[in-house]
């Protein structure tokens, strides 16, 4: 049985009190006090797949990149081609000189000279340090504005209808776009993005305004959801969890995200290493697995083929839709027809290699 966490010394989001009031079971997530679940992970998963759920994602980082060279700078530190049309967002990886993933983030173009980069909570400090280290050659200003923003991910087939009650015109936004809005008198942003495999939006607002957004959505019947449901939803949808599915030693190619690497663009950090890896071919790649026997796979479990270890899981869970699902780094020679076994608590459970995402629906 896991022990309840000491809440001392943990950072609190502007929605912490609201989450606790809604029955959130609070845990330590990379130094933040966040809800792992409210009523039940399965009920929360169902709400997002069938209705609407909301997550406190205020721990995520907001970094502004401004100046005449803002776009050129982002092109240099990202593997993907960053769109420089106002209102457009681009998912990309940032890698080091060896081509290994530092973080994955979405860069939103507010104007051709001002971008908002939304980064993972656990990476804020390292990302900002990385940005600043490479900013010398560019006329840009980097501002970590994370402390001034609360953020809610509102997700599910009913999410847009709920968002429309608070935000005019949100339903006509295209996927991966951003809009500056006013919420309860404060400046904010809405993006048509998410980490669940469902349609939805992410709303950023001041710490005061975000509490009002949460309350309005809660009163409208949107289900509060925790990190537990979020992890099941993102794994079903085949989204990478940086820090878990990539630990700083894998490239985007190995992480199954080759589509975010644009070798045809001008020089960017890690380009030479990624070119070399692409030419040489991969030995391991992040691979999807589904158990065919009963059990729950977890990160760290080993994958065997004919008693030989062929991979190690990085994430695994029980999916209400697919039962035991997982991803892990496996030998690229492994075929979908191969019979594999995953060792869970000393017991080898039959499994199969499957294509990800496990769940393909609306987005």
């Amino acid at each position: 049985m896991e022990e309840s966490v000491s809440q001392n010394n943990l950072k609190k989001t502007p929605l912490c009190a609201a989450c606790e009031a809604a029955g959130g079971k609070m845990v330590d997530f990379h130094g933040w006090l966040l809800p792992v679940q409210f009523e039940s992970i399965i009920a929360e998963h169902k709400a997002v797949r069938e209705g609407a759920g909301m997550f406190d994602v205020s721990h995520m980082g907001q970094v502004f990149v401004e100046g005449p060279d803002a776009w050129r700078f982002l092109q240099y530190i990202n593997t993907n081609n960053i769109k420089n049309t106002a209102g457009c967002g681009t998912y990309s990886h940032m890698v080091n000189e060896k081509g290994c993933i530092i973080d994955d983030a979405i860069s939103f173009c507010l104007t051709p000279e001002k971008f908002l980069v939304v980064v993972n909570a656990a990476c804020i400090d390292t990302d900002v340090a990385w940005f600043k280290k490479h900013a010398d050659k560019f006329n840009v200003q980097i501002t970590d504005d994370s402390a001034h923003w609360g953020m809610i991910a509102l997700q599910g087939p009913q999410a847009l209808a709920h968002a429309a009650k608070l935000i005019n015109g949100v339903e006509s936004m295209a996927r991966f776009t951003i809009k500056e809005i006013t919420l309860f008198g404060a400046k904010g942003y809405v993006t048509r993005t998410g980490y669940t495999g469902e349609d939805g939006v992410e709303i950023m607002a001041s710490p005061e305004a975000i509490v009002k957004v949460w309350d309005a959505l809660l009163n409208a019947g949107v289900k509060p959801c925790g990190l537990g449901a979020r992890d099941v939803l993102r794994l079903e949808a085949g989204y990478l969890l940086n820090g878990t599915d990539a630990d700083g030693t894998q490239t985007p190619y190995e992480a199954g995200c080759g589509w975010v690497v644009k070798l045809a663009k001008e020089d960017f950090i890690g380009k030479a290493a990624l070119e070399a890896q692409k030419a040489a071919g991969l030995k391991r790649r992040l691979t999807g697995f589904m158990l065919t026997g009963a059990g729950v796979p977890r990160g760290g479990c080993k994958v065997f083929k004919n008693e030989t270890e062929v991979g190690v899981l990085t994430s695994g869970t029980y999916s209400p839709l697919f039962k035991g699902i997982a991803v892990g780094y496996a030998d690229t020679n492994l075929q979908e027809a191969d019979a594999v076994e995953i060792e869970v608590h000393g017991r080898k459970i039959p499994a199969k290699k499957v294509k990800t995402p496990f769940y393909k629906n609306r987005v």
Partner: protein
Amino acid sequence: MHTAENSKYAKTHEWAYLEGDVATVGISDHAQQEIGDIVFIDLPKVGQQVSAGQNCCVIESVKSASEIYAPLSGEVTQVNEALKTEPGLVNQEAHGKGWLFKIKVSAPAEYESLMDLAAYQASVK
């Protein structure tokens, strides 16, 4: 019939109810709440010898795996087959239909060292 009141408790959150020399074992209501939605239970094998405090069963929730320790020593004589298709019974009724397994105890004195409900409840406050 075993209930929360007439069972005894290990500090690792298992309950045991002794009838003759056979103890029925489960997890406390507090434990099932902490674990959350239970989706799979790896039960011990019938005939398996267990000693008090030994890890002999794993309860999987969506989020995590929890090891369950035998509260008493002896031989596993029966497991709750219903949990193989309906593990959520433990969430619904930790003390009734959600029992885990039965042990033919080899050291009945161990039962006396377990906590009663009041002592257990005080221990999890």
